[in-house]
């Protein structure tokens, strides 16, 4: 596949992440911060998000197994999760975090558990798609800018 076609494929894949509501404007803000001084900034930040998420998912899973549920603790974990998700523009994940916190405030344990399952699905989907995108972008390399001949 020629380079132009490959770049178009990367661009389309990137756009689909926004069109499917997986990412929002915050992701674009991160991309704008990436430059020669920080060439892998976006991937590094997203990797930190995965690390934060893994820890928080484990904590929340354990907390949801307890009885009675500690809604204050659950809300605190989800507050952290929402903060991380917001920071990388993970739009659907962030929405599920907000819904979960509403169930915490209402003391609705079943709502929390149901929402958390959905959140994990959204997180897994986001992770899979973003990793595929980064992989393809790495393979294809950066877009070459045109240079005026001297």
């Amino acid at each position, binding site marked *: 596949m020629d380079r132009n076609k490959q770049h178009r494929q990367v661009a389309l894949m990137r756009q689909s992440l926004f069109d499917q509501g997986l990412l929002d*404007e*915050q992701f*674009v*803000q*991160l991309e*704008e*911060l990436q*430059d020669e*001084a*920080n060439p892998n*900034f976006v991937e*590094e*930040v997203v990797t*930190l*998000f995965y690390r*934060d998420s893994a820890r928080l998912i484990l904590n929340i899973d354990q907390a949801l197994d307890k009885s009675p549920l500690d809604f204050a603790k659950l809300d605190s974990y989800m*507050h*952290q999760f*929402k*903060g*991380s998700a*917001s*920071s*990388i523009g993970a739009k659907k994940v962030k929405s599920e975090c907000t819904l979960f916190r509403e169930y915490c405030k209402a003391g609705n344990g079943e709502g929390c558990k149901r929402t958390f399952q959905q959140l994990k699905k959204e997180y897994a989907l986001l992770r899979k798609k973003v990793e595929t995108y980064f992989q393809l972008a790495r393979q294809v390399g950066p877009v070459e800018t045109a240079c005026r001949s001297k």
Partner: protein
Amino acid sequence: MEKMGFGNVTSTSKTIKTIDIEKKISVLIVEDDLLIQKIHKVIMTKFGTEVQLAANGKEVVDLFLSGASFDLILTDLEMPIMDGIEATKQLRSMGVTSMIVGVTSRNQDSEMQAFMKSGPNACYVKPLNAEKVTAVLNELKNN
């Protein structure tokens, strides 16, 4: 509430505007979350400021007690050991006049009000973006 800050901040900004400043502004980023720390460090560096990091309010207070000074302190509100509200109270009672701007995930009026009572200059909802940083640096430059 999105912010208690400077001027009107619209929802998005497509470009980073360079601020023409006479000297490098020194910024202390106070944040326990490594992800947010990284983002805020890069954004502030891109705006030409000199950045140092602290992981909680106690580190900030200790820095000032040891004689350090900063033009701007960007502080998270919720942190272990000492939070942003307590750190701001202590800094102001020590006579620290640096600009202090809170950056929080919590956008409840009551929480922001509580923070504003401790004596900062402004408070924004995370994450920082180019537009918010521009507003803060412009305010700092004007003062």
